[in-house]
């Protein structure tokens, strides 16, 4: 049984970079283009996970556990965020009967 970092190192670092860049871009584009709040939310999660992936990869390559610790941290924060965020979305849905963010433009001028 190999250590996880060793397993991770079996794939070249560049691949992780390309992959997480792709994931992140998908997330960004999703946030920018989609109107459904839940989809936007998922895209944000996608971006977070892209970062997590990168952190893990670098931690393994540089033999620095801080990166992995940070990943746990982010996961915890993301979980909390999901709680609050989903609650807000539910409330919005109850009020507007929709999750379309384009309708939420009252906070202006």
């Amino acid at each position, binding site marked *: 049984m190999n250590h996880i970092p060793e397993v991770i190192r079996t794939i070249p670092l560049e691949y992780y970079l390309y992959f997480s860049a792709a994931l992140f871009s998908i997330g960004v584009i999703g*946030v920018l283009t989609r109107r459904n709040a839940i989809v936007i939310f998922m895209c944000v999660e996608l971006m977070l996970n892209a970062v997590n992936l990168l952190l893990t990869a670098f931690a393994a390559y540089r033999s620095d556990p801080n990166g992995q610790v940070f990943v746990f941290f982010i996961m915890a924060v993301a979980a909390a965020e999901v709680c609050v965020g989903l609650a807000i979305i539910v409330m919005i849905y109850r009020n507007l009967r929709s999750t379309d963010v384009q309708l939420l*433009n009252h906070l202006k*001028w």
Partner: protein
Amino acid sequence: MQEIVMPANRPEMALLCLLIPLLPFIGFALNGLGNRKLPKGLVGLIGCGTVLASFLISVYLFLDFTSSGSRPYTVDFYNWISVGSLQIGFSFLIDQLTLLMLLMVTGIGFLIHLYSAGYMSHDEGFGKFFSFLNLFMFSMLLLVMGSNYVMMFVGWEGVGLCSYLLIGFWNKNTNYNNAAKKAFIMNRIGDLGFLLGIFLIFITFGSVSYPQVFAEATRVAGVDTPVLIAITMLLFVGAMGKSAQIPLFTWLPDAMAGPTPVSALIHAATMVTAGIYMVVRSNVLFILAPTTLDVIAIIGLVTALVAATIGLAQNDIKKVLAYSTVSQLGFMFLALGVMAFSSSLFHVLTHAFFKALLFLGAGSVIHAMSNEQDIRNMGGLKKALPITFLTFLIGTLAISGIPPFAGFFSKDELLAHVYQHSTIMWAFGLLASFMTAFYMFRLLFLTFFGKFRGTEEQRHHLHESPAVMTIPLIVLAVLSTFGGFLGIPSVFGSNHIIGSYLSPLYNYAKGINATPFEPMHLSHETEYLLMGISVAVAIVAIIIAYVMYVKKETVPVSEDTPLSPVHNLVYNKYYIDEIYNNIIVRPLMWLSTAFYRFVDVVLVDGIVNGVGKFVTFSGRTLRYAQSGAIGFYVMVMVFSIVLILFLNFFIG
């Protein structure tokens, strides 16, 4: 200026010196604070008594001074302002000039105070009047006693203030108030010149106290250097304002709005001669600047002529006297311009006697005529006012230069000096003197001769003034008659008392240029001739006046009759007031409104408000970027981040 000795062991002299101005000040304070509460008798007593005491102390100081070797001394009280090298002491200088002025100011001042006690007795502002009069004495005494230019300036402005207060004494009348304001402001124009002169003196000589300035001036300054011309011209601007010389003379005739004793004291006998005092005091500086002296002579002569011509056509008894004052002051400056300092001062003295007399006489007439001042409505007052008439006649003879009255000696001596300097100036001076004799006798004849032209009511009310008013008249008449003997010219083989008394004043000046202080170079024949001519001219003028106003009984035409152009021009004082009004006052008023309405509110504040408006406008415009659509915000954010990263990697 002579060497100054300090009174080392005579503190009582310091006290006496202090009391001279302080007593009138105490009178001012008592009468001012007790205004409307003190009885009139007490007010008059305080007012006159303090001035009399000052006069007596002045006499004592004078006797003490002459008996102890005529050595000038200063009395230092305390350091008034001291900043770095600028040290201004509150101190007095006692010398020949100061003492002469002291005697004149307090002596005539007392007589006029006494007269006022009668003249103003019916006025509700009796206490106020005496307190202002005493304040004037205080300021005038500071002016002549101060031992440095700043002290002189203190008195200088102080008398200006009192003049303001007293011209506008009856302050319910807006015209009087305007006259008072005009006097103060015109004086202030001169004062600015004086003030700048003081600054320049301080910068040039490092001090403002007379002894140091004069010593330094003789030591370092060359003759007619620009800085000396500047200093003396600036000082002369001050003198122009105070002594009503062209172009700053129009306030003096207007100043006649004040009660008549005020006109006599301030606007004839004392305050207006402060300019001459200042020039005589600074004779060292002026001797060093012949250019300025030429200017002074010309301005003096022009003023004498212009004022005399205006005097020919005036119908207000006080206005005639006012223009004659301006004209006489012009004579005095003419004398200063030809470096006849003592003669000028001699004329100041005799003028104080006869002009105070004339004004008080005029006051007596006005009093009798129930405040009528127009000579067209007078006439034939000779019988009703015998004492006033007689004294007024003496004053008129004196001012016209008929021997042996005071004016003859002083004016003659003055004109002789002018003759020595320039024949043309003398000729013009003679012309002015001719006009003086004419309009003064015109005034006399119209007032006291012929038929009474006033209303029945006035005729009924005619009365000779009470003794408290006639006694000063008589005293002044005596002085006007014999005052001239103080300066009998040397041709008559007698000693010129004033001249020799004042001569130590010019010790420094003699060191620079002794010529003006030597006895006159004229031959005796010339001198007799000059006297003869001026007396003859005066007599001719009197005869013409007699023929016109007594024989033919001409009365000046009333207001609404059209006049010939020349007469009209002179009658309206060459429209100088109108000219000033149009070229100075109105533009200033216009500028004030323009500055306020347009520059301040629209331009300067407009820019300030413009900045505010720009911010508001920007906010109002940019808020549309705040659309509320989250997607838009996020997009902007992403693009911005990309842009920053891009710039960071590829540019920076």
